[in-house]
């Protein structure tokens, strides 16, 4: 019993399991895939995954607040388009950045208004805006070929090197740290959790749940916008369909990292570890020269196993910290109560 409780203490530190799985995977690939541990290769794939890391931060806020945002991928693509377009028109790089971020914010705002004020289901609203943002990018790229700005400042936003890492990666790091602090240490972050655990009790506790959700969607949109700027600066070209599907990788990563789709549980760094797990898996398989046709199968299985283990651990930890007799079966019930 004592050993068990020690074990339970260790594995109930949230995120330990996925981190352990990640480490194991890294060891496996460094033994089996040539050039897996070459700094260049690591830098490269992490650099490529920066947009996903950035949107996953905003997504984590939305999911913890009990919502979902499917639009982030295509909003990121559209923001990349608008910012590059502005830069190609010859505007200074900071205008391009602002335009990109505001594109994202505008979609965040639209999502937030329809979801919190008109009370339409978040899944459907963001699915709609997914289409709209992707469509808008198609319209833009149909008219203008976004094949690069001459403004080197704009390109340098993402590609400056500092301590051996690109500015993209630094931006991602800073964003992760800042937003993790906001999530875990600020009153807003606490309200995000409360809202996700239960909108009604949160409301009765004096939390403006709608405003909290509003904020979460704004953050999600704004970060998608900024991620778009980085992507545009990095690729220096944008085409229709860019970043479509990122949302699914981000959601899968977040869930794998233990962010509960039912809301109220998770953290930014764990979501990032989840995403890192998926991107590293992809990179490792690529470097092993595995037929990419089975990537999806492997990824799918990994997600399933990962989530099963995460939930198992959560339940296990719950059992041993529980002092009362009643095991509340309702905690795993995702139905939300409405007033």
């Amino acid at each position, binding site marked *: 019993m004592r050993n068990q409780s020690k074990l339970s203490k260790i594995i109930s530190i949230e995120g330990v399991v996925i981190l352990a799985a990640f480490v194991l995977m890294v060891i496996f690939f460094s033994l089996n895939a040539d050039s897996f541990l070459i700094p260049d290769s690591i830098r490269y794939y992490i650099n490529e995954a920066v947009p996903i890391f950035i949107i996953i931060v905003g997504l984590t806020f939305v999911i913890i607040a009990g919502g979902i945002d499917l639009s982030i991928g295509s909003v990121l693509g559209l923001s990349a388009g608008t910012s590059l377009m502005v830069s190609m028109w010859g505007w200074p790089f900071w205008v391009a950045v602002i335009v990109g971020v505001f594109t994202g914010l505008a979609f965040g705002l639209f999502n937030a208004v329809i979801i919190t004020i008109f009370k339409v289901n978040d899944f459907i609203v963001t699915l709609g805006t997914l289409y709209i943002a992707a469509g808008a990018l198609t319209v833009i790229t149909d008219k203008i070929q976004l094949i690069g700005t001459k403004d080197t400042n704009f390109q340098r936003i993402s590609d400056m090197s500092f301590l051996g890492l690109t500015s993209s990666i630094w931006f991602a790091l800073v964003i992760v740290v800042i937003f993790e602090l906001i999530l875990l*240490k600020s009153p807003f972050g606490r309200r995000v959790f409360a809202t996700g*655990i239960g909108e*009604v009790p949160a409301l009765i506790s004096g939390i403006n749940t709608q405003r909290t959700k509003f904020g979460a969607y704004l953050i999600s949109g704004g970060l998608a916008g900024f991620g778009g700027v980085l992507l545009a600066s990095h690729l220096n070209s944008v085409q229709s369909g860019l970043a479509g599907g990122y949302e699914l990788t981000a959601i899968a990563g977040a869930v794998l990292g233990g962010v509960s789709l039912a809301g109220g549980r998770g953290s930014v760094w764990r979501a990032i570890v989840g995403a890192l797990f998926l991107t590293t898996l992809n990179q490792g398989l690529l470097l092993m020269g595995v037929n990419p046709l089975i990537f999806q199968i492997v990824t799918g299985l990994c997600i399933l196993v990962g989530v099963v283990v995460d939930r198992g651990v959560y339940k296990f930890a719950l059992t041993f910290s529980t002092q009362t007799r009643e095991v*509340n079966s309702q905690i795993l019930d995702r139905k939300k109560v409405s007033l």
Partner: protein
Amino acid sequence: MQDNAFAEVSSLKAGSQILKMSHISKRYQGVQALDKVELDVRSGEIHALLGGNGAGKSTLLKILSGLTNPDEGTIFFHGQRVAIESPRSAQELGISMIHQELSIIPDLSVLENIFLGQERLITQRKSWSPWVNRREMAEKVRSVATEFGITEEELWRPAGEFGALKKRSIEIVKALVVRPKILILDEPTSGLEEHEKELLFGHMRSLQRLGVALIWVTHHLDEVFGLADTATIMRDGKSVAQTSIEGINLNDLISLMFGSQAAALIEQPKIDRTAGKAGSKERFKTLEVVGFKREGVLKDISFDLWDGEILGIAGLAGAGRTELMRALMGIDKLDSGSINVFGKIGKIGHPEKAYELGIAMVPEDRKVLGILSEFSIEKSISISKLVNVLKKGFLSAKKEKDLASEFISKFSIKTPNSREKIRNLSGGNQQKVIISRCLNTNPRILIFDEPTQGIDIASKVEVHKLIRELAAAGKSVIVIASELNELIRLSDRIIILREGSIVGELESVPERIQINGYEVVEQDILYKSSRVKV
């Protein structure tokens, strides 16, 4: 552990044995929830199942209704050994249950809710028939439904549209309509009004006459007398006694339920409240409610609230008590009306604003409206006023811990540590955490909606004590309680609502009780709250 702890206190009433649960044990992941429990039920009796929270009553009932299976033990039904593996097999045996928590499916119509899962029992069709015929069902359930105030039109509306009260009626109808052999009622009166309770009790008696065995779980021990025939008492997962109700008194029951702790509960603590109220200070108005109106719910309600007083709000279901409090908290929008809190006049558009003005609420239906289940005690307490635990703009873990520790010791909240999740606490302790949450906002006005719903007697006493202490400390308290007894004994002043209007007010309630006696006060309130409009 001790088999002989089970003792027959007095001889049992006659009647054939219908159910015998013997040596039932159940472990929940390391915790012994039930330990060799015995239950012996005879047809035609009302059998009270009593015990504090965590005594194992719910687990036993879950086993009986097929929701969970025992680790060991046997169940005999009419002398036959049976296995109750699923809710369906319980139904097949004729065991019906009214759950403590509302078990209503919001998207199904009232009618569908009533016959769901018991189509065959209602229509006596073949079990393999996949069809359901709603008209036929409606025919079968109509008479019982009407008795419980469910109209023909309401039968066809989604159940989610109705309030807690009607939902309870739906459940009762659901249980009664199949003419069960054993009917389990888990806290059936919670949320019911006096007259509805009476209606329910009447039904229980008539079922009893038909030979149905009723297993009845309740925290309201006073209800037991005059209704129940037998009681099985449970403590710490064991059945400690089975007794006939005749010839036993309340204190005996409490002693059996709580063992050594019982003595403290029987003597109700007295708190000297005159100090806070009648001192040299003049009384001042903390809240003035002016002309609250909301279509169909509230009709021009105005009242005042003074410091240091406990204001009870009485009224039948649909009188608008909870709605009034929700309006006061800014949860529901008003058509018109304003408030004046310490001279600040205006509307409350959102609970956030209410807290800013110094109003806090302990809501009814703790599981759904009260607790943020995933939060630790620390987080649950600080959430309503996070400013209190900020340090340089960030939440300080230390401050949160200190804050929680303060309340844990102050209210003697039973928990291993302040990081325990609130959902792991017992109902009474959860309620104390929620009260702590309110107090952390340093409110001047506290609203308690059904403060003791679903918590055991020991906790109830503590909560009452707490409310009195708060008033003594100068806070204004508003209490809503369906149980008139509780309301009358707690309140200094009571206003009575009927159909969204104030129809009466009783000043100085404690004095009235002393002078006229409790019965008179109760009659007065009942009369005013139920009188038909002239």
